[in-house]
């Protein structure tokens, strides 16, 4: 992926939205992650230029928090909840079913850049466990046997 002029404009717009305030670099990184589906080196350098937060610190932040990824993520992010309630209801097996179906592991992206599997710990709707999200859609009471059918809708 190459970083073009237009991308730089988008990054600058995000930085401006948060008034270049260095207390809000986490929010800026969240917006950059949402926009590009990853945090590029160029975006970090631009942040460093505009907010004066040292590049090493930005890299620390970008690797510290779960929400950020230095590699591009797929079009649909599949979040498999492994919160306690989901774990009790067997979400580990749901995760394995996704990994098996897509032939990738947690944190990886399919070669066609369509899906990324991401383990999350609690989406806060424990009454519906096991819970997963695909893109913006949330599914409750998911069983491993339903996984192939769920994926079909997005292919």
């Amino acid at each position: 992926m190459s970083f073009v002029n237009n991308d730089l404009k988008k990054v600058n717009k995000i930085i401006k939205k948060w008034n270049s305030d260095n207390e809000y670099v986490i929010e800026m990184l969240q917006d950059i992650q949402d926009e590009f589906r990853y945090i590029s080196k160029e975006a970090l350098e631009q942040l460093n230029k505009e907010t004066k937060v040292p590049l090493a610190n930005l890299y620390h932040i970008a690797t510290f928090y779960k929400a950020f990824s230095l590699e591009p993520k797929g079009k649909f992010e599949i979040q498999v909840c492994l919160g306690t309630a989901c774990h009790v209801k067997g979400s580990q097996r749901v995760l394995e079913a996704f990994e098996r179906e897509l032939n990738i592991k947690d944190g990886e992206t399919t070669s066609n850049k369509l899906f990324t599997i991401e383990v999350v710990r609690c989406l806060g709707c424990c009454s519906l466990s096991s819970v997963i999200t695909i893109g913006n859609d949330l599914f409750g009471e998911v069983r491993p046997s339903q996984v192939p059918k769920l994926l079909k809708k997005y292919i």
Partner: protein
Amino acid sequence: MSKILLHDLDHIKEKKLTEQKNYKAMLMVCTGTGCVSAGSFTLYDLLKKELKDRNLEKDFIAVPTGCNGFCAQGPIIVVQPEGILYQKVKENNISEIIEQHLINGKLVEKLMYKDRLSKKPIPKMKDIQFFGKQMLIALRNRGIIDPGNIEDAITRGAYKALSKALTKMKPEEIIKEVKKSAIRGRGGGGFPTGIKWESCYKAAINRKEKPYIVCNGDEGDPGAFMDRSIVEADPHAVIEGMTIGARATGAEEGYVYIRKEYPLALERLRKAINDAKEYGLLGEDILGTGFKFEIKIHQGAGAFVCGESTALMASMEGKAGEPRAKYIHNVEYGYRNKPTILNNVETWANIPVIIDKGAKWFASIGSGDVSESPWNGSTGTKVFSLVGDIVNSGLVEVPMGITLREIIYHIGEGIPNDRKFKAVQTGGPSGGCLPESLLDLPVDFDKLTKAGSMMGSGGMIIMDDRTCMVDVAKYFINFLKDESCGKCIPCREGLILLYEILDNITKGKGQDTDIEIIEQICDTMVNSSLCGLGQTAPNPVLSTLKYFHDEYIDHINNKKCPAGKCKDLIKFEINDNCTGCVLCDKNCPVEAISGELKKKYQIDQTKCIQCGICYDVCKYNAVTIN
């Protein structure tokens, strides 16, 4: 809307009540996250459209509300004022509700909750066992107001306590009242809120600094979602609580730190803050009293350790969320190194009620005698997320001191599918698992801690006899291993070691010396970790070792997992119940199942990956775990 003054609060309330009286019925559509995922926004839109199309808008109104807590039965619609609850409502039920209930006055029986034993339909929400023993303080407005409508909140009494705090109480009196109520922090630690406020107030005066008010909405505990629900159902309760805190300590700026993973909560909180500003309930000259206070939002980016107070402050300053040594207190040197009060969402939501109804009333609820010190008891109510292997899963608010048995067997109505109760996990990853023998334990801060668990933020995960406790301990240690910030060695290395040992045990590679080594590592972590995360991290292991010791021994000595959970120690087999329906064969992802149609099938153990899909899909209980 122009800014309102003190007396306008009553005017808004009266106007709104008259408006509401004009409606024959109000249909409260639950739009908490659980119901939304089951399609409640579509239901709400449809209901609104149908009422409009049928020209019924004058008599009936649809109102989107926050979470009712009865999440497993969603989507839920409650018809007020009678309080008729309809559950699992689908789009095609809307016209039925309108025609049968609203127009013809006949209740829709098939959408009612049915009593589990007698199967009799129960029309009214308050008669359903799940709601019966609950007592709502923090969740006082759940299901009753539109969280996006500030006038709804005002009508239910929001900002009344604030006007009292601004006009009739001095800062010291507010602090005294909160101290007397003996409320303790709902975020996990259980530190008395009043003492915290007083220390901050004094530090601010001594250092001649303006303090900060911070609300912790990070809610990282897996299995807990009360803070999310409170913000989604009643954001003004949090705003009012924080503003009262500001009045008590002289703060002019407040921050809410909330997870980005909670988009609905964020959206509603943003709207509530903007509305409050517009109405003059935040900003300059609040309610015309000259008092000023502002609230801003910081979004968390997914780090469990940011629930720890000093890590949260670091994250708010735009840094990685790493804790610092505890001898520096936030009340003196917190956010931006200024005196800071940090309380969690649920605590803030309790404050307006304490100011409104008085400390004496609040302290009369709960357990212990707090007349000498708030440390001697647990007052008020606590919201728990009752989830896992439980019939009525959802969010419940109960008085402190209620027993685990009452919550699990009365409100929760026990374990589904006639399985046996095995353990209840409280306190999140820093808590522990309690066995059946402790079911009569009163739920309060000190009793739970004494039993080897803790209150935490209020996750209560019920586990049935198919749950392996070694696996549960491994699960939490794995979680904490990932979430440890890595700054101090006992936590970082201790968790990696614990995980390796537990992983080996669940794989049948446990050794006789394992338990002794586990105990030594835990001891080191408890005594020498930098922050609460590391100090309490061994709790899940220690509590399961204490109460489920035999299960560890079974794994280590006999290489057996009695609960049938640990993959390397179990085998899936097909018994004589098999009718040869082919369903398991069709669903098996590795083609390990074979046989002839209408005859008993077999599993090839060399191919089987123990994924359990055959067990899930079999309709004849023909797949067994050995």
